[in-house]
């Protein structure tokens, strides 16, 4: 079973600072991590490999520094990593990102399963997984919360929907995007880290891939960012303090009055 996991390196956003002048993110000193939602994809891929044999290849398109994400993926238990990196890829939107990733996956070789994250926490689109499936004509299941069974040529999965779950059966090769419920991601082991250190990570550039230049980077991207604003956070609402029984009573009464005014009750 050959499994490919596309992962994205994202800025660690728990303490993101925005430049109020330009509305852009201050990237200095911001650490890069594997997209947290991709850890679940890595985890389930490794579990499936452990059960059914085969290998897991993590692939990322990004700057040379994204190598670090691949090393981490290997430290968790992925067998190989592939970095897809070229100046010509810069500025790609989801369409062009998926286009290049598809070419890279085809280059990696025979694939039985592609497992992507639900979405990346920076761009937050969740489009790249379904994009890849469409371009490769792979059967697709999104928002997968459980792999119920797997055989050599088919799998049954549970997919989260607004109403609950649905069970789908897909022939292999296929593509899944997975949600957090699927499993809890393991931590890298010491042995894994050592293996990551000595594992060679190939870089695919434009020259290595069968790509059309017109489909790359900004040129290949149908979408354009027109403007970026930093939304105001403050609402300046009414804040009441409770210090004793009386103020507690008043605060709750005030809240109920507020709810009536807003027609909540």
């Amino acid at each position, binding site marked *: 079973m050959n499994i490919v996991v596309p992962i994205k390196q994202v800025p660690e*956003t*728990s303490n*993101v600072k*925005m430049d109020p002048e330009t509305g852009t*993110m201050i990237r200095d000193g911001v650490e890069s991590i594997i997209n947290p939602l991709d850890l679940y994809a890595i985890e389930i891929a490794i579990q499936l490999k452990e059960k059914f044999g085969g290998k897991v290849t993590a692939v990322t398109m990004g700057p040379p520094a994204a190598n670090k994400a691949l090393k981490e993926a290997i430290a968790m238990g992925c067998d190989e990593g592939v970095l897809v990196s070229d100046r010509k890829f810069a500025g790609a939107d*989801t*369409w062009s990102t998926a286009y290049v990733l598809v070419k890279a996956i085809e280059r990696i070789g025979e694939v039985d399963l592609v497992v992507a994250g639900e979405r990346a*926490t*920076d761009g*937050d*689109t969740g*489009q*790249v*997984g*379904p*994009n890849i499936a469409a*371009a490769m004509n792979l059967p*697709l*299941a*999104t928002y997968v919360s459980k792999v119920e069974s797997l055989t050599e040529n088919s799998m*049954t999965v549970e997919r*989260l929907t*607004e*109403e*609950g*779950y649905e*069970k*789908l059966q*897909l*022939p292999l090769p296929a593509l899944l995007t997975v949600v*957090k*419920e699927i499993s809890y991601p393991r931590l890298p082991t010491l042995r894994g880290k050592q293996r990551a250190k000595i594992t060679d990570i190939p870089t695919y550039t434009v020259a290595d891939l069968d790509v059309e230049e017109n489909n790359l980077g900004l040129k290949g*991207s*149908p*979408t*354009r*960012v*027109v*403007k*970026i*604003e*930093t*939304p105001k*956070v*403050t*609402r300046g*609402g009414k*804040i*009441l*303090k*409770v210090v004793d029984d009386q103020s*507690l009573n008043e*605060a*709750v009464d005030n*809240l109920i009055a*507020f*709810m009536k005014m*807003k027609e*909540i*009750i």
Partner: protein
Amino acid sequence: MEYKGVWTIAEAYEGDLKAVSFELLSRGRKLADELNEELVSVLIGGKVKEERVNELIKRGADRVIIVEDQLLDRFIVETYSNVLIDLIKSKKPEIVLSAATVNGRTLMPHVAMKIHAGLTADCTELGIEEKTGNLLQTRPAIGGNILATIKSPDSRPQMATVRPKSSRPLEIDETRTGVIERVAFQKNLFDSRVKHLETIIGGEDDVNIQESDIVVSGGKGMKKSDNFKMLYDLAHMLGGVVGASRDAVDRGWAKYPQQVGLSGKTVTPNVYFAFGISGAIQHLAGMKTAETIISVNTDEDATIFQVSDFGIVGDLFEVLPLLNEKLAKEVK
């Protein structure tokens, strides 16, 4: 042929239409009026009740295109994508909108990839650019830290998914008339590879927090699982549902589908209650756009107060029971 018309994708479920189908029409109506073009609701699926189909027109559509077949009863993205692409190619709409639901967010990227169209995810605002007539699509990104406005100047149709609950359906207008156009389902568009085996409707805690007008959330300040019962009591009285912060979900006090935030769900209810939630940026990313935010926290410097319309600095274990008690009398 020129690309013309605004399409919104209706979502069917068990012979009925989901509310998002109507929300999209109020978005689409504004755009269509501004462009002076037709607003079309596209319905792909199994059989849907006649009166609900007519309601699409009463709530804003000029035309409803229906592709109906038993084989379309269940959402299978490959087949739906084939059908939608076929319609787009023959009728050439200028704009295609779907709801940012699990199915919308699966179908739209599938279609956009195949036809090389620009697609913007989870928009909260849509408008028309003055000189060019291009669709301006605004969406929060980077954990809600920024609002990005995006357009697709050179590719058609311009595609976007729209956050559920970010607009209200138009009132029913009995005098509105429109065309209902049935398009036969061509069997060669059916992709038989993926099989739908079963639908499992979730239990009470699995309710979709994105569809509710009222979300009552608890965080680490709730201290333990049992205390969530107070949140359910409040939610029941108000006809709402219970959500949670990641810390509460990680501790097993609530389930993952209830998680609000960057790595959980984004909700835009009329009212969001935050009990014992500090308001970390990742949590705010999922609820900041709620119409009204009410919070209770012992820490007067908690960030959650900055985004609140009404806040109580106090112990939730005093406030919540008293609130429930008083409300029980009010709503009776």
